[in-house]
């Protein structure tokens, strides 16, 4: 019994010693040239604002930030714009802004976005924030610019979850989408896998081995409270949230074999959804909540199937090869991302669900755990580079690639969180 203490768990906030850094290794063909002027007064903040906005937009692979000459006096959102001059610098868009300290110790951040090609003011926003909210504010500005210029919502202010292994220690961490500001939600001497964000972004479901077997927990991030969602005899794993947050689909072996069940987040209302003689696992809901995709070996090899979310007859979805696993559905419901084994390589692939066209997106060979960004543009995944677990991201059209590396330890099991409401 004393060995149970090895599974002693605790929560705490970490220093920013081992931050994820992101390297873009591919980019879109037509990147929007954009000038982001230094914000007047941003020197009052440790990291400023404009540099974070610039880094966010550049990392997306859709923007090409331009050098901006030093202006005196510094440009602000209220400065006039010399469109002709910016056109000669070949900027298509321009951001100008300012940071001002308020008497209450907080700051006011204002900015405006300009369309240089059309010579138009695309409006802006003013935020009141504490010093600690500077990064969040910068991500929100980047989201604003991204949405105005690309027409789709930005994901710079969303968060990601992942597991870091250092020696025999496992930490479930949460970071900004750019890898900064990471915090540890759970630390354990036993493995943690399969984190899944609740649709409101307040809770994570995951599998922890702290009781020497896989058990599904639901963890409230704000207060660290945990509930056991599934701890039956046998193995309990693969949690997936229904889009309305009311229940989880999980894989349980309580009746023998691995079968898919529906369970409430507090562990009540358990209902079996599949009845096969083989393995059924890795359930995931379609965004409309109507369909469950899952992995099964019922046809003799590991393939992806789908069935009505309440259970019922399953249809096979993947047919090429003998190992297609870990299904995920894009937020618009059109694309299936999964892991395909090709030769000895495990790679991220997508299938267009309308015409079943399949595309391999990566050239790595140990890919796992794909996860769509909430706007569907990028897919986050775990892979191995130089013998170490790293996170990487690829655009769902395969064109843009990013590598996220941590200074120490193995990183795995990424999950991209929802939009922050």
């Amino acid at each position, binding site marked *: 019994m004393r060995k149970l*203490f090895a599974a002693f768990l605790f*929560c705490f906030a970490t220093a920013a010693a081992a931050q994820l850094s992101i390297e873009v290794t591919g980019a879109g063909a037509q990147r929007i040239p954009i000038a982001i002027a230094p914000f007047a007064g941003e020197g009052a903040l440790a990291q400023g604002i404009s540099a974070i906005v610039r880094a966010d937009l550049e990392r997306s692979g859709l923007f090409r930030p331009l050098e901006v000459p030093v202006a005196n006096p510094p440009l602000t959102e209220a400065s006039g714009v010399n469109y002709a001059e910016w056109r000669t610098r070949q900027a298509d868009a321009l951001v100008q802004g300012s940071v001002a300290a308020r008497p209450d110790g907080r700051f006011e951040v204002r900015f405006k976005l300009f369309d240089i090609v059309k010579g138009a003011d695309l409006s802006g926003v003013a935020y009141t924030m504490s010093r600690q909210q500077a990064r969040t504010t910068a991500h929100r500005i980047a989201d604003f610019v991204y949405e105005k210029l690309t027409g789709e919502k930005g994901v710079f202010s969303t968060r990601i979850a992942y597991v870091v292994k250092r020696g025999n220690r496992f930490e479930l961490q949460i970071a900004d989408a750019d890898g900064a500001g990471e915090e540890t939600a759970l630390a354990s001497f036993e493995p943690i896998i399969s984190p899944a964000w609740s649709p409101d972004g307040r809770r994570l479901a995951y*599998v922890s081995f702290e009781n020497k*077997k896989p058990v599904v927990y639901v963890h409230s991030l704000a207060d*660290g409270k945990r509930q056991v969602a599934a701890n039956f*005899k046998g193995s309990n794993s693969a949690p997936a949230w229904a889009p309305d947050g009311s229940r989880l689909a999980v894989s349980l072996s309580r009746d023998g074999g691995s079968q898919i069940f529906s369970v409430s987040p507090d562990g009540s209302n358990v209902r079996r959804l599949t009845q096969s003689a083989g*393995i059924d696992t*890795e359930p995931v809901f379609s965004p409309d909540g109507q369909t469950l995709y899952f992995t099964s070996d019922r046809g003799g090899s590991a393939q992806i199937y789908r069935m009505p979310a309440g259970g019922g007859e399953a249809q096979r979805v993947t047919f090429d090869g003998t190992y297609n696993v870990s299904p995920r559905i894009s937020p618009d419901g059109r694309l299936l991302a999964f*892991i395909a084994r090709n030769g000895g390589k495990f790679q991220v692939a997508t299938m267009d669900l309308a015409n079943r066209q399949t595309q391999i997106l990566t050239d790595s060979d140990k890919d796992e755990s794909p996860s769509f960004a909430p706007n569907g543009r990028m897919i986050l995944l775990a892979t191995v580079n130089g013998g170490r677990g790293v996170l990487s991201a690829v655009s769902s059209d395969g064109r843009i690639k990013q590598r996220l590396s941590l200074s120490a330890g193995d990183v795995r099991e990424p999950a991209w969180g929802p939009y922050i409401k």
Partner: protein
Amino acid sequence: MRAIWIAVFTAGLAACSSSPTEQAPAGVEDRTSGTAKPDTTSTTPIAKVDVTGTGITGQDPAVKTGVLAQRSIFYDLDQYDIKDQYKPLVEAHARYLRDNPGRKMLVQGNTDERGSREYNISLGQKRSEGVKKMLLLLGAREDQVESVSLGEEKPRSEGHDETAWSQNRRSDVLYQGEY
């Protein structure tokens, strides 16, 4: 700090004593120290717990000697059946469980590192259930044996080649008090 120990201890007890289809209570651990609030820089004091060198208490010495001391069954790639060479091992443990109806066992199935972590949980489960099935056929009772899977998460060998993988495609049998 004491409240945490009690919570962990209680959760552990609940897990150990759960009957076949009964779910351990959906307990809520109240750990007031931990938060995921942004901008928190204070760290909770962490009680250091030394779990090295803990002896197994109350163990029957019989399970530490002879064939009962053998606890691992290894598998070929994509195989789940117990090879002939491991049958005497399973038979001995089945006999012991039959003769000691108060003893309980956990069978942990494991896989090598290749492929999906979750799918590997299911493959490891297939291995441990194969062992459990044979134990039951040979006289152990259903309520004495729990089969679970650790998938690829607890490799015995950390290497990335067939030598390591063959060590990791494995079922381990543990008696209550050993896990």
